[in-house]
């Protein structure tokens, strides 16, 4: 990848940071739906992470195995989050023997 392209990715990351900061200060929860701020912040973070992984870490040009490793680790994180939260989100619903 050429130097110019590295700077373009950098620019995208820079802008993303500014956007996420500004949006955090505006109340989207009231305008749209509860949790909108969180969703936007996480979406921007995911987008920035993807740019770093694909271009700075060269995964775009790497073998399938490397791509799979990157995806798999997030899948495993998702398992940890989802299966832990499924306990917390269903607490207080249903009792043994009833």
């Amino acid at each position: 990848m050429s130097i110019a392209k590295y700077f373009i990715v950098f620019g995208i990351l820079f802008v993303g940071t500014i956007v996420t900061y500004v949006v955090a200060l505006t109340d989207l929860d009231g305008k749209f739906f509860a949790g909108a701020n969180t969703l936007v912040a996480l979406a921007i973070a995911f987008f920035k992470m993807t740019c770093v992984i694909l271009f700075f870490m060269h995964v775009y040009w790497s073998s399938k195995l490397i791509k799979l490793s990157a995806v798999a680790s997030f899948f495993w994180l998702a398992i940890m989050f989802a299966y832990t939260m499924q306990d917390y989100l269903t607490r207080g619903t249903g009792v043994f023997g009833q």
Partner: protein
Amino acid sequence: MQTQEAIVQGLAAEPKLNYLTNGWTIRSWLLTKDHKRIAIMYLISVSVFFFIGGLYAGAIRLELLTPASDLLESGTYNKVFTQHGILMIFFFLIPSIPAILGNFLLPLMIGAKDLALPRINLLSLYIYWAGGALVLFALMQGGVDTGWTFYAPYSTTFSNTYVMLVGLGIFINGFSSILTGLNFIVSIHTMRAPGMTWFRLPLFVWAHYATSLVMVLGTPVIAITILLLALERVGKIGIFDPSIGGDPILFQHLFWFYSHPAVYIMILPGMGVISELISNFSRKKIFGYEFIAFSSIAIAVFGFLVWGHHMFVSGQSMYAGLVFSFLTMVVAVPSAIKVFNWTATLYKGSISFDTPMLYAIGFIGLFLVGGLTGLFLGAMGLTVHLTDTYFIVAHFHYVMVGGQVIAYLGGIHYWWPKMTGKMYSEFWGKISAMLIFVGFNLTFFPQFILGYMGMPRRYAAYPEELQVLNIFSTAGASVLGFGLLMPVVYLGHSLIFGKAAGDNPWMLPGLEWRTASPPPTENFEKMPVVTWEAYEFGEESGLDLEGARKRDAEATAAT
């Protein structure tokens, strides 16, 4: 080829440098990059921890001879079973097959000179020593009494024992595990010899690949859990303390997220060994190679989805319990597939009841019992009655000892000639295998009944009417202990007085048998080019095994 001639003539290779004789200084061992030397150093270290863990087990069984807490008072008893668990799980079971047999055999089985990252391998050993030394030091200072599961809030708030030091030792040891797994994954991907495709790999290698995935993905979570535990002990913030807003079940979620896949780290390599033993000692291609290979991966993946089955009565939500219970039933399926395939391999095989095969057949029966009882425990209704009783203790000892330790011993006996170049006494091998089998069942089967009758685990005292079964269990433990000590004697004896083994004493087609015993440092004189399938006993293997066996039989008949 040199190996071919050796088989034909029944002679050992001419004396030349092997990995044991290539350098005699301590420095050449402690700074080695040779995976085989690292494996031998692991063998010695792991055996030491097994022995110490066994001493603790002896103390437990002695105390449980009588209903009263007379030999050990409760506080000490807590320390004894905790330390038995920690040493056995973290310092014996988890490293045993991967660090010893995996390290030694993986490069040989894939036709490589060494693992991909030999210095990382050595670092892994150093880290194991560091973690182990810390834990032993802590045990000598007074030890820890929280149970190997370190549940909060006892471990964070109330226990006055050396939780931090032992935790640090386990934390450090975790990195040994991670680096070994990392090394295996890389090596299996990049170091295979020409012609060694994925589906020509021995199932031992597939099993270690699956194990390594679990090691890399799971172990960091126990590391962070121990870190959180330590921080909580120091800072007293209350993340696991309900009175300040924390949740003790959060600790359990984080702990079991690793510790359940950890049991698969323990059993998968054992299953890999059994695949080798069953196929090779039936002299028959393994039945359903792809099924066994993929079921190893399936166990590794599904094993991450079931950790809540250790927490059914902890206070987690009922629906979470339902999900985990269902998935527990699912995760048993790949294991069952393996057992069916092994049995089908035996059918119409040319079975020879050598010592390793005795262990393999023992494994199938004992793992079956252990696995089935695991399913009983996965059913929510039954588990409420059986949780924290001796039923659980019996279940996990059936899979961990009846499964993993039996497989480990089978593997050690099978590959002993390759590792040392000597044959052990087959007579004593068979005797000790049978003693171990009998002793093991006598020790742990009564515990199923005890658990069903309600004897709680981790208690030094119990109701008088349960004493008879406890006496059986302790009697069995003495037989088991004796049986486990015997290999130390006859294997040690074989090192000095044993018959020279030759390259391929069992006359088998595997790649590890096509080089000298013990192998030279660079493993193969010439880089092998693989043109045969795995477990190929016919002519396609490139070796005339039938001819060699006939000649061997004639030679034995003549003497």
